[in-house]
């Protein structure tokens, strides 16, 4: 709970109270969680219920995507690394490992980070779609 209060400005939108907000932001199902940057740009969306660890991983992935979009690659790296390493059983972990490599590459210009990421996928999350996507970097 403190993670949410410290990391976000949380807004509760109930279908019976604010149906127009559902239309405004394109929410089509509940529960839906959206993470918005300060300019209102949607950076991440979670649809449907998730167990606690998966939900936490998705929120951190959203923070990472938001930092990445602002080209704050060191911050993005930190969040992606956190998800990949501390929540490795979550569905978000493989995606986080992929984007960790991209963030390191974008922050440094060194394509070696992409090759390292492809190598990492040979021993982690091998069956994920993200491993397939990273395989082109090997």
């Amino acid at each position, binding site marked *: *709970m*403190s993670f*949410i*209060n*410290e*990391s*976000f*400005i*949380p*807004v*509760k*939108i*109930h*279908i*019976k*109270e*604010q149906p127009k*907000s*559902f239309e*405004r*932001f394109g*929410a089509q199902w*509940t*529960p*839906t*969680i*959206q*993470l*918005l*940057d*300060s*300019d*209102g740009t949607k*950076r991440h969306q979670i649809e449907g219920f998730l167990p606690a660890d998966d939900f936490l991983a998705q*929120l951190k992935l*959203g*923070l990472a995507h*938001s930092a990445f979009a602002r080209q704050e690659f060191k911050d993005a790296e930190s969040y992606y690394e956190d998800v990949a390493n501390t929540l490795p059983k979550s569905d978000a972990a493989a995606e986080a490992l992929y984007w960790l490599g991209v963030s390191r590459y974008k922050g440094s210009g060194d394509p070696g980070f992409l090759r390292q990421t492809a190598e990492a996928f040979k021993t982690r999350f091998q069956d994920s779609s993200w491993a397939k996507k990273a395989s082109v970097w090997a």
Partner: protein
Amino acid sequence: MSIVWTKDVDQALADARAGARPVLLDFSAAPM
């Protein structure tokens, strides 16, 4: 500690622009 929710999206976006934090929207149909 419980989550400190607001219901005012536009105020939340204004607060975010002021340099606070990203906005988390929770679209719900749970019984009130």
